[in-house]
């Protein structure tokens, strides 16, 4: 794991170049319109200096994860059943398509109309937009299940629960993890948009507040902080988890 390798050079140059360009351009504007990199960093530090920021972020994370977990559960179950039962597949396939193509922003508005300024609205929005992606993925996986393994389990008289737990779900894990990745990326973006429209507080609400005060610098600071947090969650939780689940594959490669 060496960072300074010749093939890293272009990437490094692009980061330095952008920072320089950003620094140069920011000179032309007010710091509240386009802050310099250093000013942005100072803003981020000031945000995390106040304890209320943590409450705001915790509130948003709570919605992101509630929406994510519900989407994964609902999406996986529907996807699996669609892959296993032709009747369910033909019953639901067109509705999944409807949900996938329905404009995401409409759900954000509609859920405010339907649920008002409540906890339900952002979570509802996330689930409606995200779960069809999970369903599509897991459905694809369920259609690719190895019939030979199911037959093997049937001959040995595995009951449904054992079949599901040790034969079917492990085969779906690659599809479940790729959905989890997409869902996580989608969920937090949607949660923020949804909060901007209808939530008491949250990161999305912070963004609207600073927008109404014409403070681009604070919007960027909030956006960047949240981005870093999401990347950390991906690197420190999702990736290691994925590596652990698929360790049997890496073993095979050696």
């Amino acid at each position, binding site marked *: 794991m060496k960072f300074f390798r010749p093939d890293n050079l272009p990437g490094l140059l692009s980061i330095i170049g952008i920072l320089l360009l950003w620094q140069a351009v920011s000179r032309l504007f007010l710091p509240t319109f386009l802050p310099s990199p250093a000013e942005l960093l100072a803003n981020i530090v000031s945000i995390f200096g106040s304890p209320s920021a943590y409450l705001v972020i915790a509130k948003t994370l709570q919605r992101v994860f509630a929406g994510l977990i519900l989407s994964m559960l609902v999406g996986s179950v529907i996807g699996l059943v669609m892959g296993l039962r032709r009747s369910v597949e033909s019953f639901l396939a067109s509705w999944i398509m409807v949900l996938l193509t329905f404009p995401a922003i409409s759900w954000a508005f509609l859920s405010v109309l339907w649920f008002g300024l409540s906890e339900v609205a952002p979570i509802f929005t996330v689930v409606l937009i995200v779960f069809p992606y999970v369903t599509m993925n897991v459905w694809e996986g369920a259609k690719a299940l190895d019939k*030979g*393994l199911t*037959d*093997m*389990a*049937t*001959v*040995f*008289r*595995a*009951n449904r629960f*054992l079949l599901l737990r*040790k*034969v079917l779900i*492990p085969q779906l*894990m690659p599809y479940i993890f790729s959905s989890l990745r997409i869902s996580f990326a989608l969920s937090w973006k949607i949660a923020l948009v949804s909060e901007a429209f209808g939530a008491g507080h949250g990161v999305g609400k912070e963004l609207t507040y600073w927008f109404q005060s014409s403070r681009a610098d604070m919007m960027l600071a909030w956006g960047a902080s949240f981005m870093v947090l999401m990347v950390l969650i991906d690197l420190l939780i999702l990736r290691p988890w994925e590596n652990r689940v698929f360790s*049997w*594959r890496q*073993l*095979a490669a*050696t």
Partner: protein
Amino acid sequence: MSSQAVVIEGLSKKFPSPSGFGEFTVIESLSLQISRGSFVSIVGPSGCGKSTLLNIIAGIEPHDSGAVRIAAQDGANSTARIGYVFQSPRLLNWLTVEDNIKFALEAQNIGRASWDERVSQYLDMVGLAGQELNFPLKLSGGMQQRVAIARALAIEPDILLMDEPFSHLDEITARKMRVDLMHILERARPTILFVTHSLREAVFLSEEVYMMSVKPARVFKHLRVDIPRPREPEDPRLFDLEKDLVREFFAVIEQDHR
């Protein structure tokens, strides 16, 4: 209580024909008996419905008429235990070798207390002692098939079905596996129905051989191999027997073509 482990009477199976019109008969009024503890082979060319027959016995393929009865060793009111070794190992690659065997034990509702003992007993029997915690993809094809054999033996089946279990292995490995299987059979005495397209394999391993012709599958010869086991693969009596059977086989096939 009969000494027959499996009795098949007048079994027939039709498949819809590939053209979409009508159906063709894969198996027609097939009858055979397998007595407890014996090793019976079914030999026939590819596509004669051998695998279909095993799948019907295993209960993963329906049949049209006739009866399949499998006697459970431990009393008439329990369901028969069926072990199956497929052409490919069909292991659960995400589970360790040990957990693959425990999967079958759990599926069969075998008491948890005996799991560890059975795992080590049968892994030892197939020559894989010490591989308990390895993952299947780390093993060679031959070793994976040994795990599959251990898994099938570990449930102590009333009938062990084997569907060309060595056909996916290279010839040298397959040869060693046949000899090893012969030695395994001295320690465990399961009832085996073994399906193969290799006459040599069949006469080397079996006590009884059913020879089948194609479309529809019917038994045209049933014989006993009275050479005591364990046998040597180079035993000249096996070669002579194989030669005779090959001749008979071609005679029947030519008759069918006429």
